[in-house]
């Protein structure tokens, strides 16, 4: 399964980068989201994946004695997901507003060629 996830991460990165390199702003945001997902999954995988052992202390105990999933990557990813939502929401609204003002979502047309 780890191999499969690693392949998925690679695919997410590739797709994200490919979309970021496009001229359309909407695609750029989609690319950012995919790239973020890829990064989250990468952190998750590198913390090693464990099946069916969530990092939750049983009611009857004070500490976990058993093997359990690493909580640190999870905490990290949780933060990352929330922050990336902030970024995405802002970016989506920004694109919307920018489109209303300049009537294009083509990055090249937004460029001012002053030089």
């Amino acid at each position, binding site marked *: 399964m780890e191999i499969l996830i690693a392949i998925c991460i690679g695919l997410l990165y590739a797709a994200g980068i490919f979309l970021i390199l496009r001229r359309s702003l909407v695609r750029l945001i989609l690319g950012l989201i995919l790239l973020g997902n890829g990064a989250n999954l990468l952190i998750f995988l590198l913390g090693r994946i464990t099946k069916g052992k969530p990092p939750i202390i049983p009611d009857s105990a004070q500490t976990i004695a058993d093997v359990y999933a690493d909580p640190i990557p999870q905490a990290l990813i949780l933060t990352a997901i929330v922050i990336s939502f902030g970024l*995405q929401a802002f970016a989506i609204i920004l694109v919307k507003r920018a489109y209303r003002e300049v009537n294009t979502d083509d990055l090249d047309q937004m460029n001012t060629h002053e030089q």
Partner: protein
Amino acid sequence: MLLAVLLPFLLAIFLVIPFRKYESLVARTVWIVPAGIFSFFLQTYLSGNTGITGKASLSQIIPYSLQWNLDGLSLLFVLMISGIGTLIFIYAAAYMKGHPYRIRLMGFLSLFMGAMLGLVLSDHVMNLFLFWELTSISSFFLIGFNNEEKASRQSALKALIVTGGGGLILFGGLMLLGQIASTYSINEMIALRGNIVADPFYPVIMVLIILGAATKSAQFPFHFWLPGAMKAPTPVSAYLHSATMVKAGVYLLARFTPVIGGTELWQYTLIALGGITMLYAAFHALLRTDLKGILAYSTISALGMMVFLIGIGTEASLLAVGMFILVHALYKAALFLITGIIDHETGSRDITKLRGLRKVMWPVALAGVLAAISNAGIPPSLGFMGKDLIYESTLHHIFQPIWLTSAVVITNIMLLIAGFNAGWRPFSGNLPSAFSKVHLPEKSMWVPPLLLAVLGLGFGIIPSVIESPLMQDIVMSLHGVSWAGHLALWHGFNTVLLLSGITIVTGIALYFALPQSSKIAAKITGLTALSPENIWTKIALGFNFLAIKITAVLQNGFLRLYILIILAFVGSLLAYKLANQIYFTIDYSYLSPVTVYEAIIVGILIVSILFTVFSTSRLVAVASMGVVGMAICMIFVFYSAPDLAMTQFTIDTLTVVLFVLVLYRLPKFIKLTFAIRHIRDAVVSIGFGTLIALLAMEVLDNQPDRTVSKFYGDNSYVLAKGKNIVNVIIVDFRGADTLVEIIVLSIAAIGVFSLLKLRIRQSQKIE
């Protein structure tokens, strides 16, 4: 000693003050400072206190100490720097009379003098380097002193780039040397010479140090900055470009002779470098008609000869170097000062026009003749003795005495002619009517050159003044063995005397035989395309052009191209590293087995990623993006991350909703990019994605360190009374981080809100 070096710097700072009506008084008395330094060192010399080494801590605050070393070589230089410096200050005060920035020039001169003194007194190589760079910088200001002239600025820049670039090269050499010797003190390095010379890095060090010296001392092919530097006011040329700064390179080579010298490589490199320079520049000196041009090229030639002699490296040749440095400084500074007087009084420096000036300025003419005699090596001048020693050392060279001697003889003949052209020709013949009103300048201008020229003669008649201990100490510090010989004018009839005779007779004959015209000079201008200066300028322009091109490509204003370049670069670095170190020994026993539903989820994930990328419909793309998020959410569910799954689910849904809400206001996807760019981007992104996947697999091969996780597992209930460890980390252990995160989210929310509410008036819109 510290005071002697610091004094010029303090003076330079003092001269920044605007003096207004005391300007003249200050300018005319400032020479007292170098004179004081000169008398201090002279007194040291006379009392026989040479060979002083010492340390001087600057202060308690700056934990930096200067290591001094005052041996014969340093002493020769400090006496020249402060002695000639005194005369230059006196001269400059008169020469620059009425110039609004006279004091500023003196400030720069003073700065330079301090740097030069520090350079020749430093024992620590990094101190030496520091002062070395300071001389480059102060000479930049001095050459570009007439900063309103474009040519002047260009020359200054050229000199700075060549000498400063050489300085950097030298820095590399000194660093390496210090690393190998594990000391930065030159005195300590001398004892380690055997190790240094045997080190595999020795040739590198040697080449770097020689390059540093060659740029400073204007050796071929770096000589071109020196004629350009003649744009400086004449006192500056006399001081920097004849007596002191250009000799810094020679000083450096001499100073390092006991450390890295003496090998065959060193000998041949220096003999070739110096030999080419002295012949090339002496020939050029004959072709010049501008007085300063003649002096500049003959100086380059003389410097070449010094390098050449250091290359030979025998006791006689090192003594000859010491002698020649002194002789050359005396007569060349005198000639420069004379040129300055001629230029100042007649407004011309063209030797085809200047004639008969002896009739209006006889003391200057006397100085000119004496300097030319010393330059020519006619007895009883000091120059004669210098030439004798040079011939003596080439004649006794073990490998190629004939060739070396003839090179030196030819150079000397040409230099003799150049010296007479500069020192005698303007004063000979009949005075043209145009110059009949020319008069003798004030005393403070003609006394310094006359004094220098007379000294050149006087030392020749009474050589014992400089023989012991100055010349003996120089030989001692360069060669390591004390020298017991004596300086004398007369050695009896021998080959050396014959060579001197040949030089003088041929030189004087040719002086009268050769026509002086600007026609010859005009002929060689056709060859300037091949000159090092021209090639250098081309390279500099090429760099400029390249920089413009690179900027146009890299900084083109297209953000995604920046990303592309960064990714391609990082990707190739990563690929290089991985290609060398990847092992691919995945231990399958560690891995989790793939169940059917997991396989299905992964399949959905892959398909939806492809849909997001390739769909032409925005709605499909956004929806597939949502599916990607959901699939990842499922992976979190399978692999024990319930909190992540919940958050991912919420956020993903919110994002899709938000997207769809604004989507209908946005334009449709249009096919904007060309196919070839698609392919290029695809190659980069797939390559990078592959690298990340490989990296992930490679990391999986190593077992992680779980101590921190274990801490949280053990303590989240005990310390924070929470059973869900992830939650406890976020709200308790890393609570402050979460607080900041909330702030970031709030800022984003404020941003979103204000973007939605923002009303831009038509007039403010960007067209």
